[in-house]
Structures are given as structure tokens and as C-alpha cells.
């Protein structure tokens, strides 16, 4: 067989992924004076960040002066059921306000307070109104601002370019190999440091708010390169996705609807969330409607409405209501803001929700309730990183944003994702640049490795028989949806793993029609490898953790277990298979532990 051809680009730092984290990393690395390549699977500005709606959590204290990083840190840790990497949560809470202000200096126009400062809105699990926002299109503002800032920083942008594998020289990562979607031609990036900012894995589930891009590329590439993954059992099912019509099932309905006064109701009109307040959050959650209603205006003397419990709690509650046949006609529950806020307020605060329901579901949310139900939204788990530097456990590799694990523990609070991207995206860029500057020896990318990857990538074209890649993807999504969903148990997880093995075999025989130019069938076929890997990782970790916590609920182990609360499930690949181990969490220093002892 002829040697596969490929072009080569060389940079000090390459950043894979151009959502919020990737753009921040690229900007920070360029600022540090190194040469930067930014690689994105879609066109620039289309990454998943663009879909984020609610806002950026940051204790700026513009609306509630009582707010500060300690309160935000505490909320984040409690939201993650204390499984978070404490240092990441601390850095995040401390640095988020500065990052929001930096975004403003880059040109972002947030909604304002009466004093002309950045306005902040309520969200689940946050003690104070804390989310800097622009209506319900905060992610769009964020990615556009970063994108237009980045293009003036001398960064080389490689659009519609998909990275398949990382390249290693001995123990260190020295580049990445992939293909141009436009032409199907191969491309090698040689780099002293690689930042992964590839987002999540939600496309492994059937009902998801995630786009085609979210196939766990970074998670898998890191694992295959020998890096550790942690917390892969924790998958966030956002409580409110659209449920009707079928074609829009899973599309996100922002938590801002509840932050801005919307409430959840069952078919009897009951505000059922009052029946689902867990012991852990009793102290801070209103147990009656009157107090919950007073809370919107007076947070000092009232406890938060249970509509705004952390997402894992709300998703499980909705799941239970639907199972108990108290759901809405199409298998969700009702989300009502029309009876509680004026049409003008709704259109001003939630313009894209108004538009989305009107256009896609024929529902006017200023006149009638929405039907909503859980949708796979976010993976808490990811590449194990060193908190301050975002360095993975393999030299030369960094990870930020959803692809990194630890920051959110077992459950992420709404709004903490965008701030995570800003804080750790920047840190990843800075530290990758620093590492690149101190890089010793020659930058080597072994052509043997590269050619072998290229040959594997072309195999689907050369098979005569074989399966349609879309069918395998659909079967995997069905498997994960039914067997590794919101509620899990040992038998189902084992069954899922068995089916994933079968799917892996089928994927080896996948066949692609047509040529290499912009061929989505081929793209899906190639993405199957990473999608199957992350699905397996998630199921393996879920089988390992014999307790229920955050985004991992086992009906055969229904309670949180203190011993498990001290452990991460770690996955690593050795000799071609994934090994599972339990390792202790980093221990929080006493001065931070104090924050959890006081009754606030």
C-alpha cells in the first residue's frame, strides 16, 4: 500500500477545540508569546459554547454584595456532593469574576444593573443571584467575543479539521494527527504542547442537548495516549429539555426559566419539587410555597425555592413524577412561567426560549406552559488534571473545559460551565505556553505512528461488505439511553458493557460509501471509535461506583456512602484495555473545610 500523504504544520502550542475553553487557551498562549494553532471540528464560532444560554457564574457581588468567592466555592462543592477537586473549585470561584470582567474588556455586552454594572441572575444551587448573562444567549455573546478577540492575536485557525489521535515521542505528547473535513486529506500538527478543549460526550446518548460534535474525541485521545480519566460515571441529565414534538426531543430549555421565576408542575398542577427536597439541602431550601415565593425578592430571610435545587436533584424528581404517571401528555412535566411573569418580561429575559418554542413546538410560552423532561447535557468526568496548571498525567498534554474532570465533582451547577471555560481555558493556555518555552530536545513526530493511523482511517473505504456507521451510532445511543441513563443498576450496566463489546466488533467492519471530500458518513464512522470508548468508560466507572451521588444514581445502591465520597474512579488504558481503579480525592485544607462547618 502506498504511503498515505499528509501536510504538516508546526506550532509551540496547539489547542484542539475552539469553544470557550479553546479560545481562552489560544488567546492566553498567544499572549505569552508562543506560536499557536487553534483547531476546530466545525467552523469558527459554531462550537458548543454558542448554545449555552443561562449565564456565567461569578461572585461579583453586583446584585448581592454579600456574595464572595467563599460562598461560590461552597455552593460548587455542595452541588458536586463534595467530590470536586477542591483546588479547582477554589481557583474557579476566585478567578471567575476577573475573567468575566476580562470578557467585558474584550467587548462582551452583558445585561446591566440599574447602576450600570453587570447584572446577575438566579440559578440552581447558587446562594445568590450570580450569573452574568445576556438574555438567554450568553454563550453566543461569549464565543463571539472571544472569537473576534482571538482573530487579532496572530493565532492560526484550522477550521473544519478533526483530530483523530495524539502523537507521542516516548513519554511526551508532541502533536496530533487528523484530517480536513473539506477535502478528507490528512494533516499532522507538530507541537511542543497540546491543549485539549474538545468538550463532552453527550452524543453517546439518544436524548441529548449535545450536537454531532460531542463524541468524546478529547477524552478518548487522552486515554489512548496514556492519560488518566476520572469521574466518568457522572453524567448530567439536564432536568429541562424539550420533549415534544419528537424531532426536538432533548433540545435544551434553559435553567434561566426557573431562575427568572418559572416553576415545575405535574399534571395535577402540583409544584412537586417540594416533595423532593433531600436532607442534604433542607437547610437552604424553602419547604413551603410562601417562603419560596418570598425568596425571589428577599434572599436574606428566606430559603431558595426547590425548583432551583441542583440539576441532578431536579432531573431525578421529574423522572419520578413521570414514572408515577403524574407527567404531562408527552412524557415530561410542565414548566410554567406564563402564569407567573408578564409576557414582556418573558420576551425580554428569555427571547430565544420564546422563539424556540414558538417555531419548533407551536407553543407560546407567554400564554401556556412548556413540556420538559431530562436530557443528557454534560459529563462531569474527564481528563485528570493538575488543578493549577491543567496538566494531564501525560507530559505535554493539558485539558480545559468539559473534557477535563474534577472541577464539578459529581454534579455541575448551572452557570459554572462557562466560568470553568474562562478560568481553566486561560490557565491551560498559559501553562502550555510555559511548558513549550521550556521544551528541551527535538520536536519529533514519528512518521511510522502517523502512517499507521492514516491507514486505519482509510480502511472503511476499502471494505466491500460491512455496516452503515449511522446504524451503529444509533444502536449505541439506544443502549446508553436505556441502560446507562439517569437511574442505573448492576445488571443493566453489565448488559450495556456486553452490548458495547458487540458494537465495537461491528464498528471494526463499518463501511463507507463515496469519496473523502466532505463525507459525513466517513466522519461518523471515524467518530465511532471515540464514542464507543467514552461510552465504555462511562459504563465501567458507573459499575464500579456502588453508591448514588450527583449525576450517578444506582437503584441497587440508592444512598451516598461516606467512604465512596473520598474516592475517584480512575480509568487508564494499558496494553490495549481500560483498567479501573479507585484513588483517594485530594484532601481539602482545614481553612477551607471550615466553610462547610458553619451554618450559613
Amino acid at each position, binding site marked *: 500500500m502506498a504511503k498515505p500523504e499528509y501536510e504538516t504544520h508546526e506550532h509551540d502550542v496547539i489547542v484542539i477545540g475552539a469553544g470557550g475553553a479553546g479560545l481562552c487557551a489560544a488567546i492566553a498562549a498567544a499572549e505569552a508569546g508562543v506560536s499557536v494553532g487553534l483547531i476546530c471540528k466545525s467552523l469558527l464560532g459554531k462550537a458548543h459554547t454558542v448554545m449555552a444560554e443561562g449565564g456565567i457564574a461569578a461572585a461579583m457581588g453586583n446584585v448581592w454584595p454579600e456574595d464572595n468567592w467563599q460562598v461560590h466555592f461552597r455552593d460548587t462543592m455542595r452541588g458536586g456532593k463534595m467530590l470536586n477537586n477542591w483546588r479547582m473549585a477554589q481557583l474557579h470561584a476566585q478567578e471567575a469574576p476577573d475573567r468575566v470582567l476580562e470578557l467585558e474588556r474584550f467587548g462582551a455586552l452583558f445585561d446591566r444593573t440599574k447602576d450600570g454594572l453587570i447584572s446577575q441572575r438566579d440559578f440552581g444551587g447558587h446562594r445568590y443571584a450570580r450569573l452574568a448573562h445576556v438574555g438567554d444567549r450568553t454563550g453566543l455573546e461569549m464565543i463571539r467575543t472571544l472569537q473576534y478577540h482571538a482573530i487579532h492575536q496572530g493565532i492560526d485557525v484550522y477550521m473544519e479539521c478533526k483530530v483523530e489521535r495524539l502523537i507521542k515521542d516516548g513519554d511526551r505528547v508532541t502533536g496530533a494527527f487528523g484530517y480536513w473535513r473539506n477535502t478528507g486529506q490528512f494533516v499532522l500538527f507538530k507541537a511542543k504542547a497540546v491543549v485539549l478543549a474538545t468538550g463532552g460526550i453527550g452524543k453517546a446518548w439518544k436524548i441529548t442537548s449535545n450536537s454531532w460534535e460531542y463524541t468524546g474525541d478529547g477524552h478518548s485521545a487522552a486515554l489512548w495516549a496514556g492519560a488518566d480519566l476520572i469521574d466518568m460515571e457522572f453524567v448530567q441529565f439536564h432536568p429541562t429539555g424539550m420533549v415534544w414534538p419528537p*424531532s426536538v426531543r432533548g433540545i435544551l430549555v434553559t435553567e434561566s426559566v426557573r431562575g427568572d421565576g418559572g416553576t415545575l408542575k405535574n399534571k395535577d398542577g402540583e409544584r412537586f419539587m417540594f416533595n423532593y427536597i433531600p436532607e442534604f439541602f433542607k437547610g437552604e431550601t424553602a419547604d413551603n410555597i410562601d417562603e419560596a415565593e418570598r425568596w425571589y425578592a428577599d434572599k436574606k430571610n428566606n430559603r431558595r425555592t426547590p425548583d432551583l435545587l441542583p440539576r441532578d436533584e431536579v432531573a431525578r424528581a421529574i423522572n419520578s413524577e413521570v414514572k408515577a404517571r403524574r407527567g404531562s401528555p408527552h412524557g415530561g412535566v410542565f414548566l410554567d412561567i406564563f402564569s407567573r411573569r408578564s409576557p414582556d418580561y418573558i420576551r425580554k429575559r428569555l427571547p430565544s426560549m420564546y422563539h424556540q418554542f414558538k417555531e419548533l413546538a407551536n407553543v407560546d410560552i407567554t400564554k401556556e406552559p412548556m413540556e420538559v423532561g431530562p436530557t443528557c447535557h454534560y459529563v462531569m468526568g474527564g481528563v485528570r488534571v493538575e488543578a493549577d496548571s491543567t496538566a494531564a498525567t501525560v507530559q505535554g498534554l493539558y485539558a480545559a473545559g468539559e473534557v477535563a474532570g474534577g472541577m464539578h465533582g459529581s454534579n455541575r451547577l448551572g452557570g459554572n460551565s462557562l466560568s470553568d471555560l474562562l478560568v481553566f481555558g486561560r490557565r491551560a493556555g498559559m501553562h502550555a505556553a510555559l511548558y513549550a518555552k521550556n521544551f528541551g530536545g527535538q520536536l519529533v513526530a514519528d512518521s511510522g505512528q502517523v502512517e499507521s493511523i492514516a491507514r486505519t482511517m482509510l480502511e472503511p473505504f476499502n471494505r466491500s461488505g460491512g455496516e452503515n456507521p449511522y446504524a451503529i451510532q444509533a444502536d449505541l445511543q439506544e443502549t446508553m439511553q436505556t441502560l446507562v441513563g439517569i437511574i442505573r443498576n448492576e445488571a443493566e450496566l453489565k448488559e450495556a458493557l456486553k452490548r458495547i463489546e458487540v458494537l465495537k466488533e461491528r464498528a471494526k467492519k463499518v463501511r463507507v460509501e463515496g469519496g473523502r471530500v*466532505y463525507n459525513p458518513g466517513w466522519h461518523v464512522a471515524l467518530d465511532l471509535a471515540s464514542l464507543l470508548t467514552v461510552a465504555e468508560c462511562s459504563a465501567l466507572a458507573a459499575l464500579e461506583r456502588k453508591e448514588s451521588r450527583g449525576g450517578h444514581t444506582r437503584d441497587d445502591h440508592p444512598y451516598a456512602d461516606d467512604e465512596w465520597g473520598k474516592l475517584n474512579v480512575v480509568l487508564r488504558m494499558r496494553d490495549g484495555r481500560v483498567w479501573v481503579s479507585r484513588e483517594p480525592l485530594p484532601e481539602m485544607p482545614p481553612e477551607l473545610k471550615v466553610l462547610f462547618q458553619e451554618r450559613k
Partner: protein
Amino acid sequence: MQTFTMQVFRGQGRQGDFREYKVIADEGMVVLDVIHRIQATQAPDLACRWNCKAGKCGSCSAEVNGKPRLMCMTRMDTFPPGETISVAPIRTFPLIRDLVTDVSYNYVKAKQVPPLRLKPPDPDGKYRMMQEDVDRPQEFHKCIECFLCQDVCHVIRDHEELKPAFSGPRFFIKAAGLDMHPLDTQDRTEWIRSQGGIGLCNITKCCTEVCPEHIHITDNGIIPMKERMADNFDPVVWLLRKFRGGRKEPA
């Protein structure tokens, strides 16, 4: 459930033609769902761009029955039963394959718009902006860069020779948003004239009509910008220039 006859453009480079597919559409389906169904069951290599499927990312622009639309926001039940529906790539940009076009022109133009240049902050180090001052530029920040306005712009569509000196409606509102930013101090006059080429726009409002975000591109963006250019117009300088034989910059 209903069976639709779809005419989907298939081709690569300069060649291509419509091909017919029969597809069953479920309740609530949009054109993008139908395209995905064709991919999954009949033509796995059918090329199209998409991401969010909710009108937020601006990736799935196409011409549906000749009209520039987002495929993800075009419901199948808006077409009369029995009607054949055509889906073609946006016509203004060079074809890559099937429904995917080369939109790199827009990314070149994006880079040319002079960026924000900030005022110094207030004495306490903070920036303050009032909501009423932010409302106007926020309208332009809604842009999802679907490039449908660029697709229908007559200058870009029909005048290849003018493209180097014309940036199109997307970047007029980008510049307008920056100009209206309460903290901006950048002068974009020269850009608007030389690279923006706003003088070439004859306000037919086609861009505004196709904007899926309903941004008032012409009324709120282009016209005020044209008016500002006219305000900057100095008849004495104009006369001098005439006599000196078209020198660009006055002495």
C-alpha cells in the same frame, strides 16, 4: 406521518444536480431532520453542516424551495401536502460538496473589521454602561453568523469584482455594533469606505428579510452608518479631489 418528496442538490466543485428522495416525516420534523434521515438511510455521504439544531449556531443555512433558510428552523408541516421540496446550498458561495459551501470569504472579511478600542475605566477601575445604551448594540450581537444575509446580498452574489472592497451586511452590523458600543473609541470611517464598501449597498433590504434573528440590518445598522458617512462628507474636500484628479486622501 407523511411521505415527502425531496429534491436535494448533490454535487461537488462545479458540477451537480438535484436528486430525488422519498422520506417519511414524523410530527414536528424540520428540514434538517429530513436531511439527517436521508443520510442515515439512503445517502450516508450527503454533506451538510449543522450543530445546534435550535437556531442558535447558524450552521445549517441552505436554500429551501429557493428561499434562504436555516434548515433546523424550517418545519416540514409548513409545506402543503404533496409539494416537492427542494434543498440547495446557499448559492453565493463556492460549492464544496452537496449542501456545503466555502464561506471563507466571511472569515477573511471578519478579520478586517477594526476591533474594539476601549475607553479607560471609571476611577474605581470599573466600567459602567446603562442598559438603554447597551440595548442598541445588543441587537447586532444576536447575529448567529449564518451568512444568509451575505448569501442574498446582490453585491456579493453578482459582483465578484467588487468583493475585495465590500464586506457585506454581516460586517456592517458587526461594525455598527462596535461603533455603538458605549466604551469604544475606534474610528472605522476609513474601513467602512475602503474595505467595508458601504456605498455599494443600495438598501434593497434583502439581508433584513432573510435574517433568522430578525435583526433590523438595514434600518438600524446600514442606514445610520450611511448617514454618518454622509455627515463626514465635506463638499470642499470633494471639489478639491475632483480637480486634483481622484486622489484618495485630501492633502
